[in-house]
């Protein structure tokens, strides 16, 4: 310890302090500040570049996702449209069929009505003709059967025979 104290040189201490303080101040101004600033700037630059690259990547991804979405939407729309078209087609076809059926039914019904009417009219006509014919035939038959007086008497007698008194 005595040796250390004996070896301690105040002059050296003084110079060391002076040199070190001046060196710290000089280097701080001329070296450390610009060096650290540049390092910081560089690191910031790298960080920003990485960040923007990441952003660009994300944007790209978003874009791709958007595209995909649009494509999917378009596809879905197409499918929907096709489906709709198919439905419309089917509907049109079925409607048309139903309408045609209805029309046909109606025509048939009309035809039946008309036929019925015609038939009725024909029947009436036929009946009239048959009646007329029958009357004529009956007239001729009656005229034939009652052409003589005996025949007339015979009829009356037959009729009277049928009549029974109760």
């Amino acid at each position: 310890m005595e040796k250390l104290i004996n070896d301690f040189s105040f002059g050296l201490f003084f110079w060391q302090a002076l040199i070190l303080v001046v060196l710290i101040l000089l280097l701080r101004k001329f070296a450390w500040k610009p060096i650290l600033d540049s390092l910081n700037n560089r690191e910031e630059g790298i960080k920003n570049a990485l960040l923007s690259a990441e952003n660009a990547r994300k944007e790209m991804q978003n874009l791709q996702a958007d595209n995909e979405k649009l494509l999917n939407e378009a596809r879905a729309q197409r499918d929907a449209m096709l489906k709709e078209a198919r439905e419309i087609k089917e509907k049109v076809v079925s409607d048309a069929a139903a309408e045609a059926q209805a029309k046909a039914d109606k025509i048939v019904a009309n035809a039946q009505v008309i036929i019925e009417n015609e038939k009725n009219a024909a029947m009436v006509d036929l009946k009239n003709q048959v009646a007329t014919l029958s009357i004529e035939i009956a007239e001729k038959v009656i005229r034939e059967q009652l052409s003589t007086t005996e025949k007339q008497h015979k009829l009356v007698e037959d009729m009277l025979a049928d009549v029974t008194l109760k």
Partner: protein
Amino acid sequence: MKKDNIVKILLAVFIVLFSVNNYAQEYGVEHVDNEDTAVHEVPGKIDTKEEVTEYIDHHLQDSHYFNFFSDGATGDHYGFPLPVILWDNGLKVFSASKFHHGESLVSLDGATYKLYHNKIYKTNSEGTITYGEDGFPTNARPLDFSITKNVLAMLVVSLLMFIMFKSLASAYKNKDIPTGFGRVLEPLVIYVRDDIAKPNIGPKYRKYMGFLLTVFFFILILNLFGLTPLGINVTGNIAVTFCLALITFIIVQFSGNKHYWKHIFWMPGVPIPMKIVLMPIEVLGMITKPFALMIRLFANMTAGHVVVMSLLGLIVVFQNWIAGPAFFGFTLFISVIELLVAFLQAYIFTLLSALYIGMAVEEHDHHPKDHSEDIPVI
């Protein structure tokens, strides 16, 4: 590619060690002087344990000369003297060459100065050194503001750092990524920021980056310089580490928020008698933290130098063909470890400084209001 690099590094280490080795044999020679006579003898070879110890002692100390090596046979020194600046009833400036490596006395304005064991003492006209009971000289010492070897090394390192980091700073003006040597410095700067400052200080780290970065590189480069054959030992000097720790201490105290001071003087969440007991302990803790910083750096660097040089000294002491390569191998091994320690100590000093600053600026908003869990982990 990687293998090539390893080979290169090993080669570089080898070259450094070779030069350290040569240096150890040549440089120390001049300092071998006799404690009893206190006269600088014409140096011979370093070949005894005492001389090696003496040499290591001198190496660890600061010096008024910057010697690269000396010629033991002729006593010539190859290097240059540094200016001596004394404050002793007025400013006195002269070249250290006047001391002739301690052989001559310097008389100036009626006072006589003697360079003895790398320190300047005031003596009588004959240059007599008197010793106290503890074995240290009792002669008066003038305030020595000399530009010593360590001061010169610090100035060179400061200049180097300024040039390096200024160029790194200006490299960013043109492009985002530095080229050349900046590529080596940038990861270190980022390391200090991301692994030392941010996790320990938190969001306010930016304010302390100047101090942390400067201290980190200052210690690191001086540590590394200490491994070169230049023979400087700045971070293994107690005055230097004291100054570094003192600055940390000052910064910590000035950044302390009210929670920090409250924890020291009126510990929340403990009974009042405990508060009174804890107060001096906490105040002591305030001082022991930077004190540990100072001792840790000093002891680690000094120990490293002592070990490396002792192993080299053993080569000289044994002087045979088996010990030489064996201790050379040991030295190589320890030098590689020292390389690691150079980084480690710079890191630890900076990390602990950051930690202490972090403790001082920490916000306690997340604590429950009754502070029942507010007892800090020591």
